[in-house]
């Protein structure tokens, strides 16, 4: 494990019963009483948020207000004002931003923070989390629950443990042991259907899931099977992304329907390469990187096949993606039954950033320099002014 990963400290922070807590700041008489924020019974309103006192009666969010009132006759309903919550949320996030610039807001009351590099300012993650929680309480009178660990996934589960108004710190290296006894449903992404399927195979706890053979899980759950196994061990490398690293676009794609259906491999490769280069050029011009690429092939009988691939690090480098695209296309066409009507390529998992070559990737760095030159030539003289590889086989009409 790299020292960067070993020293990484990710916090998951969650404001306890946020809407209700804000209402209690505005009207302290609501403290210690069962309170819900939501619409009126007569308007068929639902519960938007419930205090912990109300939850003890079985009241929870999204429940019809009428049902909530029946479960807890002393329930106090507050209509709530959205603008107030937005202002309170902004005040909390402004404060969190003074601890680290790497804050990823997940919702109005939930965020991830990466504390890398802040040790000299605020001490270890546990100290910083403690201080943060106290400051939010003292300055804004709101309760914060915090999960601390080396990654987002474990911190998210840990904060669930600490609720309400607590802090749970998972020791580095103990992630698999922390997860092992927990029911599979605590893992984000495992819903009732997957849970039931896992139960069919007597997999109820994360420890069992983590030690189940990867090939078996892949067989039952497809690609998700292996990632589920890694996550069951508490492994997660998803970075915390501050707003400026997030792309407003979710994906970028190109597809082409041929004027005549074809089975000419060189034409198919050429077309795919051309679309891939156009997408990568667009990524570069927008300062974006992609994590995942999908290729799509539609046959003359309208059957469609897609294949996905993910690079270990996000990229906008034509050649890195082309190596993958080329092998994916080969795999799809191996099963070809008929002529091809359409090919397409799609890039997803977009994030802001610039491609950076590794220390021993001199050739890739040189290639990347050439790509920048080609981008400028195409911008000046047109997209078809520079052709590469299999694109040479394409006629102007293709």
């Amino acid at each position, binding site marked *: 494990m790299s020292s960067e990963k070993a020293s990484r400290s990710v916090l998951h922070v969650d404001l306890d019963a946020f809407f209700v807590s804000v209402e209690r700041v505005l009207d302290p008489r609501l403290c210690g009483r069962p309170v819900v924020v939501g619409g009126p019974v007569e308007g068929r309103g639902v519960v938007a948020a419930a205090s912990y006192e109300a939850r003890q009666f079985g009241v929870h969010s999204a429940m019809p207000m009428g049902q909530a009132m029946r479960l807890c006759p002393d329930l106090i309903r507050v209509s709530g004002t959205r603008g107030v919550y937005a202002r309170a949320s902004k005040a909390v996030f402004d404060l969190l931003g003074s601890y680290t610039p790497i804050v990823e807001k997940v919702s109005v009351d939930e965020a991830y923070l990466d504390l890398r590099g802040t040790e000299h300012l605020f001490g270890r993650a546990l100290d910083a989390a403690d201080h943060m929680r106290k400051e939010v309480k003292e300055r804004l009178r709101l*309760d914060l629950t915090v999960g601390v660990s080396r990654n987002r996934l474990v911190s998210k589960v840990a904060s669930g443990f600490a*609720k309400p*108004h607590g*802090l749970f710190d*998972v*020791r580095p290296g103990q992630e698999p042991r922390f997860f092992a*006894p927990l029911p599979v449903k605590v893992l984000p992404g495992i819903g009732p259907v997957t849970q039931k399927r896992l139960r069919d195979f007597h997999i109820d706890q994360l420890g069992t899931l983590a030690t189940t053979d990867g090939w078996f899980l892949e067989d039952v759950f497809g690609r998700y099977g292996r990632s589920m196994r890694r996550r069951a061990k508490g492994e997660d490398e998803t970075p915390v992304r501050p707003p400026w690293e997030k792309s407003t676009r979710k994906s970028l794609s190109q597809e082409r329907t041929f004027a005549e259906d074809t089975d000419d491999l060189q034409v198919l490769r050429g077309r795919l390469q051309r679309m891939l280069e156009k997408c990568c050029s667009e990524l570069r011009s927008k300062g974006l990187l992609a994590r995942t690429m999908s290729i799509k092939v539609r046959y003359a009988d309208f059957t469609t096949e897609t294949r996905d691939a993910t690079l270990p690090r996000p990229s906008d480098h034509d050649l890195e993606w082309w190596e993958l695209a080329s092998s994916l296309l080969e795999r799809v066409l191996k099963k070809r039954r008929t002529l091809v009507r359409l090919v397409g390529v799609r890039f997803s998992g977009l994030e802001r950033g610039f491609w950076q070559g590794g220390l021993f990737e001199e050739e890739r760095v040189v290639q990347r320099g050439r790509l920048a030159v080609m981008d400028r030539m195409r911008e000046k003289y047109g997209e078809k002014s520079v052709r590469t590889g299999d694109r040479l086989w394409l006629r102007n009409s293709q």
Partner: protein
Amino acid sequence: MLEEVEMDGKAGQFSGNKNTFFLALRGAPAEDEEQLREGDVFAITEGVDVEAGDLVVWWTGVERTMALARVQDDFSFKGVGGFLGPPERLSAEVRGVVVGRLRQFEPDKSQEA
């Protein structure tokens, strides 16, 4: 001292397994890099291999002898937070490995009606 406690809520799921349990720290600990605090609750897993760097609970088989120690590179135990490491003359054994720590805070009473 360390005292075994039952947890409810989500944390209780952790102790639903026979190999896991919670210990609460009673009394003020000495300050050191483990940043222990009175009231801290440790999540412990027993019956697992111990590795250098692990924080462990050792005991002599009697609850009141439970203490926290860090496993050194040479696999000797160094007491933390004012706890002593196991003395040579005692036949101490590892009760479990600390996987996490829960710190809960009292809600602000001044706000309560």
